[in-house]
């Protein structure tokens, strides 16, 4: 594997191997020296054409923990405002020595365009392209589920038998798509709960069951409820009547949490709209994995960088 573009192409065995490597990376974070020399002399360029806090910081932390040099490119204050193309921007970064390009872009499909174009030789990691995919988020979510639900037996295991409900703004969510695809590959069963208007057209190809309200999904007693951010910035027309109605039907709150088994977990990829798709008290409850997901993100991205490094073809 030279690039990581999509969860669609990932097979179960290499995915489990990445999750296992990530366990060892978590371990490194507890040592006296919290760095590995693995990427010494390599440069990771974070190229962000769209705002991000945790993904960018997480990739930065991961690259630094592997002793890579990091350059960060954001569109603000760059020559993109002068009309420089994506191709020229990436080639400029590679000319400056980038071995890995971590790419976030508001347009779906940009990451695979870059790989197929042959513009650059660097490893490309898709850090979110429009409403398409965000594979490292799916990996860190799978990692979080595996370590929470399997505990001591996590290493080497997939997610067979684990039931996951993904609820909310699925239409705009690259996190939902990558998760649904990866979870299926790892053997989990996925149920989607969303208003009709927030389901994408090709939903049938995801291999997931669909229910119309969160209450129906809770009745299934899932192991995981994954809430998604309502993406106000991508909403150009009315996808649901009002925010209060959304919260009523698809928001994760205390009474719904109480109806879940005590071992079930509630996830959110962040950033959260507290009070909209998830209530503050659920987000702060012991069953919430929100901060764990962030911590695991660094370890999983270290594992991804390491795994891609071994394949230079």
């Amino acid at each position: 594997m030279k690039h990581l573009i999509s969860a669609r192409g990932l097979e179960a065995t290499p995915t489990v191997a990445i999750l296992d490597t990530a366990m060892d990376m978590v371990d490194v974070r507890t040592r006296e020296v919290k760095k590995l020399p693995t990427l010494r002399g390599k440069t990771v360029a974070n190229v962000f054409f769209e705002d991000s806090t945790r993904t960018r910081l997480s990739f930065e932390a991961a690259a630094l923990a592997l002793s890579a040099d990091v350059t960060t490119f954001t569109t603000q204050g760059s020559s993109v405002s002068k009309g420089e193309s994506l191709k020229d921007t990436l080639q400029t970064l590679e000319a400056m020595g980038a071995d890995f390009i971590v790419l976030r872009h508001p347009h779906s499909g940009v990451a695979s365009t870059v790989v197929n174009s042959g513009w650059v030789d660097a490893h490309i990691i898709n850090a979110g392209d429009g409403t398409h995919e965000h594979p490292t988020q799916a990996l860190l979510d799978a990692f979080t589920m595996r370590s929470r639900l399997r505990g001591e037996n996590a290493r080497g295991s997939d997610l067979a038998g684990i039931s996951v409900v993904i609820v909310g703004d699925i239409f705009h969510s690259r996190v939902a798509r990558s998760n649904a695809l990866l979870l299926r590959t790892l053997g989990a069963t996925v149920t989607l709960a969303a208003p009709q208007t927030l389901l994408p057209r090709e939903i049938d190809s995801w291999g997931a069951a669909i229910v119309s309200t969160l209450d129906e999904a809770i009745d299934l007693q899932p192991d995981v409820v994954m809430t998604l951010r309502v993406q106000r910035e991508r909403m150009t027309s009315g996808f649901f009547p009002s925010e209060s109605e959304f919260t009523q039907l698809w928001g994760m709150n205390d009474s719904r949490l109480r109806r879940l088994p005590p071992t079930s977990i509630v996830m959110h990829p962040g950033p959260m709209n507290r009070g909209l798709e998830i209530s503050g008290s659920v987000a702060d409850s012991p069953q919430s994995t929100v901060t764990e997901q962030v911590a695991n993100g660094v370890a999983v991205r270290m594992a991804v960088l390491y795994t891609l490094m071994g394949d230079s073809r």
Partner: protein
Amino acid sequence: MTRVVLTKPDIDRALMRIAHEIVESQRGRFGLIFLGIPTRGVHLARRLARLVADIEPPDVQVGTLDVTMYRDDLATQSTRATVATEIPSSGVDGSTVILVDDVLFSGRTARAALDAITALGRPDVVRFAVLVDRGHRELPIRADFIGKNLPTSTSERVNVSIAEVDDLDEVSIA
């Protein structure tokens, strides 16, 4: 053409001798930690720890040291799976660490292991025990305790089988 060079009794005797040599070199000091390098070094480390504990009991611990991320050939080799590093909860500071591996060849694994130990802490002493030293060093590294010196040519393969992994104890050259 495969030639067996060490049988199970040979391996048992070599490990027993190494265990005595380790006890002797410790001169009664406490805090002995055997760190095995995966895969087979881990099992050899456990055996040596048991043997040493039988000779002079107190305070022998065992762990696993994964050196994968410290290797110098990562960029040229395909991705290797990592293994969990497990060290005693008391840490390695102030202890005597005995690194254990099955074969000493180029010395690059041992070099990576020394870096990996540095990241864990600061032992008083680090020593290196191997079942087989086959020569052809590429770095200035040597073992302190050697089960068997095996003169080989670089084209030959040394295969170490350990019962815990391979269902028999044997060293052969192919």
